[in-house]
């Protein structure tokens, strides 16, 4: 099933329609659709056209530079990379437990980021589709259009995001690309004045987050024929959960469920992620395709992010969000919800959880503490290594490093959230293309349906394309008459050139 519509048998006979770039997502990607003369769909692919090389150029750099450098993968959720790297290096340094202040400041930074990123995605990027309709007037289908038609909703979205950014600023030193987390802890705690300023606004943020959950929920209850069906396909789910099975964005162990909600594995220490997950490379995309080794390539792909997390956990520690989670689960009538657009609903439940957790952390005096860093005993041997995992806004994020005795990084491997969702996003666009585009004249509104399916995942395509050196490539030079003039292919071992 996973490869249906991935590769057409005779592409040269088909008409090509491209959505390039996919709009209102983070980073650059494109979708190509190949159709025959009857507008029957034969191939749909989400291509990631950006190219990064962080795993390679972090090699040879001192490990303490890593949390600050790798976060430059992206400007949307750099805090996730900053913290995942710091957590991996804690392990590398043999640190079992950072101080309560350090952990709470890191959590606060992270939950601030979850809040801002989810608000950005829902209000700025997706609400135009959801409020105006999928094929509404394209000139209005943006945040400016939302601000004109629904000024209150737009204002709350902007202010929610601003609050999240303020939390990051006060904990990391900067709104974007801060330096707050360091291997072994943090370099600052929350200043009393900053704490007071955040406390003043946090109750409003909780209230607005509740309203956002209602908006996203009503989309399903009011139009189930669209929202429950659009881009619906079955998959496995994966996330980290707390030791008690609760939702946790900062730390936990791995849990996965199959499409019927049955546990595939639970409370697996992520230091051994390599035994669980393998990544497949396909020649037409810069983004890899991860899958669970135990289930294999065909059946082992899975979804991560809000839809996975809300259904993977047993409970949410904050009361309002947990109430919403229960309603969400009940909506599935005993089965996991697989609808692509339910990502929005789950995402808003998470935003509420983030807001409530920020409130709780702000009431904890440890957040102003002065015990910021601990040291550990580095693992013995020539190389020490560590894996750090965090639930980033878009899903589970893995950072894995090896560090030589001279303190320089010798190996880095990152598996980022959007990469986990690669197969799922491709499946979603194929499902939508089959259902809405087949046999019809292609219009902008119809193509927007494809983008809406991608947008639901909140993909961040910039940090998802970090592979370097191992990516096979195919380059074809085609003459104006359609004949193949030259073709160059490169496999993971090097370059082979073949004249067609």
């Amino acid at each position, binding site marked *: 099933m996973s490869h249906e519509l991935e590769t057409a048998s005779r592409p040269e006979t088909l008409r090509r329609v491209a959505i390039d770039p996919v709009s209102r997502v983070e980073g650059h990607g494109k979708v190509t659709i190949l159709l025959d003369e009857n507008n029957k769909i034969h191939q749909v692919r989400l291509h990631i056209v950006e190219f990064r090389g962080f795993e390679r150029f972090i090699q040879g750099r*001192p490990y*303490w*530079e890593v949390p*600050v*450098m790798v976060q430059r993968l992206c400007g949307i959720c750099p805090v996730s990379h900053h913290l995942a790297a710091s957590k991996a290096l804690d392990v590398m340094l043999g640190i079992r437990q950072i101080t309560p202040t350090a952990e709470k400041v890191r959590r606060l930074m992270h939950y601030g980021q979850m809040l801002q990123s989810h608000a950005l995605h829902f209000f700025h990027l997706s609400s135009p589709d959801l409020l105006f309709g999928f094929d509404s007037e394209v000139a209005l289908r943006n945040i400016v259009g939302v601000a004109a038609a629904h000024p209150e909703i737009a204002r709350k979205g902007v202010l929610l995001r601003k609050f999240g950014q303020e939390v990051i600023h006060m904990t990391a030193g900067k709104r974007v*690309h801060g330096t707050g987390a*360091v291997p072994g802890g943090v*370099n600052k705690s929350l200043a009393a004045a900053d704490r007071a300023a955040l406390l003043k606004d946090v109750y409003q943020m909780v209230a607005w987050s509740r309203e956002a959950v209602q908006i996203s929920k009503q989309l399903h209850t009011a139009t189930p024929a669209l929202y429950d069906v659009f881009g619906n396909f079955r998959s496995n789910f994966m996330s980290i959960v707390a030791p008690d099975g609760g939702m946790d964005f900062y730390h936990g162990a791995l849990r996965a469920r199959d499409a019927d909600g049955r546990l595939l594995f639970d409370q697996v220490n992520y230091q051994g992620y390599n035994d669980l997950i393998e990544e497949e490379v396909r020649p037409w995309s810069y983004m890899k395709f991860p899958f669970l080794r135990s289930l294999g390539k065909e059946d082992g792909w899975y979804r991560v992010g809000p839809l996975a997390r809300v259904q993977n956990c047993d409970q949410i520690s904050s009361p309002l969000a947990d109430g919403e989670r229960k309603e969400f689960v009940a909506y599935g009538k005993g089965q996991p919800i697989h609808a692509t657009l339910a990502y929005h609903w789950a995402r808003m439940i998470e935003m509420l959880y983030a807001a409530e957790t920020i409130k709780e952390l702000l009431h904890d005096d440890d957040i102003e503490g002065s015990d910021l860093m601990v040291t550990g005993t580095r693992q013995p041997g020539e190389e020490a290594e560590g894996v750090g995992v965090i639930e980033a806004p878009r899903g589970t994020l893995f950072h894995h490093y090896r560090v030589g005795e001279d*303190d320089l990084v010798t190996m880095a491997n990152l598996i980022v959230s959007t990469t986990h969702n690669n197969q799922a996003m491709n499946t979603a666009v194929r499902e939508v293309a089959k259902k809405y585009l087949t046999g019809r004249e292609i219009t902008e509104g119809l193509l927007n349906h494809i983008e809406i399916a991608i947008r639901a995942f909140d993909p961040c395509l910039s940090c998802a394309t970090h592979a370097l050196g191992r990516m096979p490539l195919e380059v074809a030079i085609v003459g104006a008459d359609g004949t193949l003039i030259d073709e160059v292919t490169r496999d993971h071992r090097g370059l082979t050139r073949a004249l067609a």
Partner: protein
Amino acid sequence: MSRMNEQQVFLIDGRDVPFAPGQTVMQAALDAGVYIPHLCFHPQFKPHGSCKLCTVKVNGRPATSCTLPVAAGMEIESETAELKDKRRMLLQMLFVEGNHFCPSCEKSGNCKLQALAYDLGMMSPHYDHFFPDRPVDATHPEILLDFNRCILCELCVRASGEVDRKNVFALSGRGITKHLIVNSESGRLGDTDMSTTDMAMSVCPVGVILKKRVGFAVPVGQRKYDTIPISEQFGDAPNAVLEQTR
């Protein structure tokens, strides 16, 4: 020429600046609280005159203020648009000659090169980057050398030779191939007797000589040039990075 309590004076940008016999323009200016941009100058060492950032005009002719002895009645231009342009250009050339990636550099906020670029309003590197290949030297257990950021000021060479009496560093090569080397048979810092208490540890204006495992221990906002521009800070106190090592 005016006289104040028989103190001899010269003029910088139309302002009377007193001086003592034997002082250079730079020394007298800094003593009087007049900042002239500089990178290779350090009050403890014999002036070098190589970075050219401190170039001023003396009675209409350019000269490096760190090497120029003051004479009574000199009329110095420093903060002119023309000289600022020249200084900005020199900074841009220094930036593109090395690999200065401020976003992930632990010296960011404590770096004189960066601070001067901010102070002189350098908005872009302007020139094509050289992207030289300069591997780091991490062989010393406590000290990291990141040659990517070297601007050849020779302050470490001078500190290690004249104060530490260890001669750990030297410059090698000529012209564009000139580069900082370590004076050991292997060429590696781990095979020298350099220690973290050496003066050579504290004089690097950029991020070449670093105490290991310190990194970003000092948060944004508390670094030397985060809030006060370099032109309003005088003297050459040890860098904040060193003061706050764990």
